[in-house]
Each structure stands twice: as C-alpha cells, then as structure tokens.
C-alpha cells in the first residue's frame, strides 16, 4: 500500500477530524518507522492543519520522529530502577555489539538504540521497547540474542515469546485485588439503586483520586453532572508515567473489566455517552487485549446502546494511545493530547470538570480510582471506608521496586507504615525510600515510621527502595535529567529551570561544584516550585530540594573545597584540540579533577 493510500484509509476512518492527528501520526510512525515529509503534506491537506503545526506535534512526543529510525527502534528504559539493575552497562554492550552511537541510526539504516523514560517494568527490569513492544528482564544473554536477531534481520514478530513476557507480580492483596464480584455487578447496582444513591455511596466512601492529587472522586463526578452541557465525557488516565509506578499496567492486564465498569458507572451517573482510555505508548502491548475486552463488553450488553437493557443508557469507550510524554499524565495536558495537540497544560481555572475534552464537562480519573468506584457500587460505602484512615479511606496499590527481595504490586489499607512495607517486601539495610516517583519525596531511615496516606505521605503508588550501598546522588541525577527531558517547555521556570538544575546536578556529580552551586540549586528549585505553570514544574525540583535538606552529605562528598567553581570546563574545551592532534596524554589536559 502506498503511503497516500495508508493515510487516506486512516483519516477516512476518523472523518478527517483534526483531533485525530496524534492517533494518525502514531499509526504512521509504526508503519513507516517515522513520519515522512510526504505524510505531513498529505495530512495537512486532509485535516486542514498547517504543516508547522504537525511538525510541532511530532516534535513534542518522544515516540514520533520525522526521520527514519530503522527496522529496529530500540529504547532502553532509563528509570533509576533500571539503572540499579544494570541497564546502562547493558545499553553500552548493545551499542558496542551493534556498532551504534546512542540516539543515532546506524549507517545501514537497520537500527537505532536510545533511552526512554521509565517504561513501567521496574519490577522486571532492565526493560526496553523494540518498535514499541516491551521486552523485560534484559541481561547479557538476552542482549546477545537480540543482537543476533537484528543482524539476521529477523522481524520482531518472530522474536522469542519469552522476551515479551510481562508478569503481574502481585505480592499482597487487599480490598480491590481480593474482590470476586462479576462483570456487570456495579452496573446492576446502578440500575437497581439509581445514580443518585450510588453517587451518594461513592461520596460517603471517601474515595479520593488514586493518581496522587487526592481530590474527592464523588464530588468531582457531582460537579461534572451539575454543569449544564449537551455532552459530557469520561476519561481514564492510564498514562502511568511516574518513574517507578506500574500498578495500572497490572490493573489493565488483569482487572480491565473492572476499570471499564467504573468508567461506565461514572458515565451512567454523570450522563456521558463517550469515554476515552488514554493508554501510555509504553503499554502498547496491552492494546489488543483491551480492545478485545471492550468488544466482549459490547457483546454482553455492558457497553454500547441500552446497557443491560436500560433504555437510554448508552456509553462506549475508545482507546487513545499516548506517544511518549510524561506531562500528558497531567489531566489538562492529557485532554490536549486527546484532542490531537501538543500536551501543554491548560490554564486553570476553568477545570476539566466544567471545561474538559472538546471544552465539555469531563471527569478524568486514574485507572485505580475507576476500579475502586466500581467496587464501591457493588459493596457499598462501608465496605470501603472501614479500611484505611479517616482522611484516606480504602486501600492503595503500591508499585515496589529497587533494593528488595520481592518487588511487585502490594495493596495495603491506607495508613501502613514505610517500616511495615519494607519488612514485607524483604528490604533490609535500606538507606532511603523514594515515594511517589521522581516528583515525590525522599524518605530517610529516621522517617520510616511515617505512613502512606493523603495526610502524611501521599503517593500515586511509586515506591523505590535504596540500600546503604547506593549513592543517592545517582537517583537525584536521574530525576533531574528526567524532568529536563519531560518539561513541556511552555513556562519559563520549568523550561529553563529544569535544564539549569540538570546541569548543576551534573556539575556536582563530576566533582566540579562548590557550596555556591548548592545554594543556586536551592534558589532555582524554590523559584520552580512557586512560579511554574503546572504541577510538573512545581514538583520537578522536589528530589533535589528534599535530598539537599535530608541527605546533604551525598552532595558534600562531591564538592570542591572552594566557594565558587566556574561552569566553564577548561579541560573539556580542549577536547576538540586533543582529537585533532591525536593526543590524550597528561600534558594535553588542564586541571582535571583529582
């Protein structure tokens, strides 16, 4: 099929709606390993968009490219949890064996090897994506095999199945994961008891958003329902991008029916007919199975027209793929992305609950929140709010990775202490725990008596353990690079601040920083916290600020004993001269670190 036909076909499916630009680009990328210029021209005509706008969308998403990546586009997961499992060494080994430089396609156009932000496989890393498909449990052996497969030009579909195995790794079950209700039970409750009663139950349950922000779910649904509109939307945020989080992956793999049931329940309550699941690109391998579940639900009367035979209860769900942008986990960016645009966070107010997708009232909730809501509809508010604490009712799924014997999914009632969790997952000799991901909190050993709860340590579920042998500065550096990479670039403090911060952390790590630089990091961090446009910018400096105050020694041991050290590295500036002259002896260097 020619590219012209390919584009005609997919744009026809979506009635040439410009809002489908991102989904269309996503399909083209995986068909052609890039978005060719010819495709951009055709799309601009068909969708009535400017070519520059289309370039802008391609440039925003990490998985879209305007030049070819080759038959094999390999992205090594670059989360600190992958680093701890040896991903960097494996990546060097892969690059050496293939004869490529990171990020640059090989001359024969066969392969590109690069890094990508956390792929959500922290409990079975190091992980990578090949042409968008997840490969887990990398080791030297697997790398060798991958090299052979690439050099023999074996199609990815023919690679051994075990490379692509992703296990759930559920280690502890509680309220949600122990539930044994049937598909449709929540919707039956809705039809029997009515939307008003069920909404009251959800409010009474005290359920708060599981993505981390913790807004009361029932109130959000009520605001949305009360907003005058001819259309409302239900959106499930499955853009699980926070480094170290992978619980949505497990819920969508094994409990997707309950998640879709929660979305349908919400639709029935607020009066929505369309729902969208925003699935992060890294979870592409889940897509077909999810589509099948949606189809099964349509066929069993749990989706579509007149759900469970109730006249006028119409609702359906579409899956929308993300394309590599952490910021799209922010709900207003996610909506921009659903509309096919660059994922720039919107101004607030107005909030999505009144002006969301297509500017209509929209409920955006986390995967886990929808599942919890469905089960509350089945079992009632008391079943839920008798677990947990007064302000944080119910349970929370934690994604545990790092230095522990049993990484995986742990479901606990809220209020569980860090100490208890560490004991259960087999973590000994722990130096610190990073809770809530890169944007979260670094908890030192003396605070291990603190609890997981909205009123103490609030988290979307990421829980990474670091033992005494780890240099926490490696973690800080990884997060600083992560935020500089993922900043959307809209507002000054985050766009520039996150890059300045990254450079300063690198300066500390390379042994060139002084006390002055640490003060500088504090100032930049505070400015980002108070003046950024969205939550990414305000939370991006957290790992630096938290560790500067709680773990000052991890910085101080790297410092030069001077008040000030210039950013300009005289020795690095001589690199070009060294290359030209072919010299690399001591005399060709100036003032290298001792």
């Amino acid at each position, binding site marked *: 099929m020619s590219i012209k036909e390919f584009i005609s076909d997919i744009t026809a499916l979506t009635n040439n709606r410009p809002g489908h630009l991102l989904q269309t680009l996503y399909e083209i990328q995986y068909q052609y390993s890039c978005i060719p210029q010819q495709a951009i021209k055709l799309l601009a005509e068909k969708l009535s968009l400017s*070519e*520059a706008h289309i370039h802008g969308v391609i*440039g925003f998403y990490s998985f879209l490219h305007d030049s070819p990546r080759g038959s094999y586009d390999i992205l090594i997961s670059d989360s600190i949890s992958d680093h701890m499992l040896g991903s960097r060494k494996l990546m060097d080994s892969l690059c050496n064996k293939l004869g490529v430089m990171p990020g640059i396609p090989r001359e024969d156009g066969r392969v590109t090897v690069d890094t990508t932000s956390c792929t959500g496989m922290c409990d079975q890393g190091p992980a990578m994506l090949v042409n968008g498909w997840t490969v887990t449990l990398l080791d030297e052996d697997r790398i060798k095999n991958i090299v052979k497969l690439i050099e023999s030009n074996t199609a990815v579909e023919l690679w051994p199945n075990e490379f692509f195995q992703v296990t759930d790794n559920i280690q502890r079950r509680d309220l949600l994961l122990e539930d044994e209700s049937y598909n449709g039970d929540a919707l039956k409750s809705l039809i029997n008891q009515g939307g008003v009663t069920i909404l009251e139950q959800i409010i009474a349950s005290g359920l708060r958003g599981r993505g981390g922000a913790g807004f009361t779910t029932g109130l959000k649904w009520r605001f949305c329902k009360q907003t005058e509109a001819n259309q409302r939307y239900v959106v499930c945020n499955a853009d699980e991008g926070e480094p170290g989080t992978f619980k949505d992956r497990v819920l969508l793999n094994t409990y997707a029916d309950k998640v879709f049931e929660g979305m349908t329940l919400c639709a029935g309550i607020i009066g929505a007919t369309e729902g969208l699941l925003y699935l992060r690109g890294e979870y592409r391998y889940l897509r077909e199975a999810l589509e099948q579940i949606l189809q099964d639900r349509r066929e069993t009367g749990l989706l579509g027209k007149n759900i469970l035979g109730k006249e006028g209860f119409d609702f359906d769900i579409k899956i929308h793929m993300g394309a590599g942008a952490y910021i799209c986990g922010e709900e207003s960016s996610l909506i921009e992305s659903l509309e096919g645009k*660059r994922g720039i966070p919107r101004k607030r107010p107005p909030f999505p609950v009144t002006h969301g997708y297509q500017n209509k009232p929209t409920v955006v909730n986390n995967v886990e929140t929808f599942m919890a809501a469905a089960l509350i509809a089945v079992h009632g508010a008391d079943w839920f709010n008798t677990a947990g604490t007064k302000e944080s009712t119910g349970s929370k799924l934690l994604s545990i990775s790092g230095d522990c014997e049993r990484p995986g999914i742990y479901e606990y009632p809220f209020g569980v202490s860090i100490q208890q969790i560490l004991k259960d997952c087999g973590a000994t000799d722990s130096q610190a725990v990073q809770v809530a991901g890169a944007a979260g909190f670094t908890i030192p050993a003396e605070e291990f008596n603190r609890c997981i709860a909205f009123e103490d340590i609030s988290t979307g579920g990421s829980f990474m353990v670091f033992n005494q042998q780890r240099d926490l500065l490696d973690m800080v550096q990884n997060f600083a690079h992560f935020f*500089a990479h993922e900043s959307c670039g*809209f507002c000054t403090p985050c*766009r520039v601040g996150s890059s300045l911060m990254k450079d300063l952390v690198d300066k500390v790590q390379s042994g060139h920083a002084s006390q002055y630089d640490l003060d500088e990091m504090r100032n930049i961090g505070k400015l980002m916290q108070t*003046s950024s446009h969205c939550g990414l910018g305000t939370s991006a400096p957290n790992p630096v600020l938290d560790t500067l105050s709680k773990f000052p020694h991890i910085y101080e041991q790297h410092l030069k004993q001077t008040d000030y050290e210039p950013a300009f590295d005289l020795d690095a500036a001589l690199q070009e001269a060294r290359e030209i002259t072919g010299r690399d002896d001591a005399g060709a260097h100036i003032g290298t670190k001792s």
Partner: protein
Amino acid sequence: MSTGKTFKLDGKTIVFEDGDTIMDAALRAGEYIPHLCHNPEFTPHGSCRVCIVNVDGRQVSACTQPAMENTEVDNNSDKIMSQRRSLLQMLFVEGNHVCPGCEKSGACQLQAVAYYTNMLSPHFTHFFPQRSVDASHADTAIDFNRCILCELCVRASRDVDHKNVFAIDGRGINSHLVINSSSGKLGDSSFSASDKAAHVCPVGAILPKHQGYDIPIGERLYDKQPISIVGDVAANETDEKQKDVEP
C-alpha cells in the same frame, strides 16, 4: 456598569468587572504589573510567568488569574521582584541576547522589564544555543536567537491574520519557533509585513528590514521613561502608526 467589586493591589483598591483577570483590572486602573507574553489584544497565555503576583499567600500569573473580591494582591514586594528578576535572567541565558548589537535595544520589552526589576547581570550559566537568522523574506527578518517563546506571533497569525504562519516545535529547552512553509523559511510562507504578527514581538526577534537605527540610541521608547509608565512595545507601535495616518 461597575459591579462595585474590588481587590487590593499593593494596598491600593482596584475595581474590577466580572470576568476580569488581575492583569485586566490593574491595566485599566493604570497600575503596572511587569509582563512579556501578555498583550491585552490576545487571549492570555501565562507562559513567561513574569507577571506572577502573590494572592493571599499563593503565587499566580496575574494575566490568567481571575480577579477575586476582597483579595490582597502583592505585586511589588522584594520577594516577587526578586523572583521576576530570576525569571528574566533565565530568559536572557536561554537565548542569545546581545543588547549592544541589537537593533531593538532601547525599545525592547525584555530589556525594559529587566531594567524595571533592577536586573544587573544574567547571573545563570549561558546556554549559548545555536540558532539561526532567517532573512529570506523581503520585508521582515527573524532572529531566532532573541525569541523568548511568548507565542504572540503565533497567536496573532492564527487569531487575527488567520494564516497560521508560526508554530512551536520541540519540547522543554528544545522548544522553538517554526515557520509554516515548504522550506521552513519566512520568505516562502504567506507572511506579510502588514500582518498583525509582524507587529507584536516584544523583543528583537521579528524585525522590519530596510530600516535601522531610525531613532537614535538614547531617544528610544524606554530610554527616557521606564516601561511602567510608557507601556508595551506593541501598544506604542500601534500609537505610532495611528499618528502616521492622522493628518
């Protein structure tokens, strides 16, 4: 048709209408809140963050924040001014802003706001990005070194000229202005010097060709009076134009 609603801006009572942002009400009352990406003719953007103010303990951008009755807005404290200074310094080191060599010097809003906030040095480490100059158009040149990503040209071309000549590409620190044409050059686009987009740039990124230093340094917009009194570049340009056509 005043609603009689008010808030306090640095202790002064400011009347506002329903739907006003803090910036709208302040501008109407003749009070200056430093800003770069805001231009009252366009939908507020809130990206430069230079207009941050403190409202009852919370920092917000004045250009996007709805005015609220009986709130206390701090616009001039040392803390706010020092944060604005840092934001401006970030903008200076992000691009290549060489004031002595820039035709816009003296009539540049970035420079004027920097003076207003007492910014004396760029402070941060320069990025020294490699950016180009696009002189392909007959009447207008673009120097990307000076672009501060305020998106005023993007908004003007989209909302007023209905041409969509400009867009933003890239992400994070790699975000950059791009031009909609087959070559990516302004000369091959539908841009015209009479477009609104040609007259909204607050810095020296989009400049008219065939004229230079018509007004000598020392006699330019911000050379005699600060921006808090003179106002925005774009507003003054409009005034100048109107003067030209008046008999």
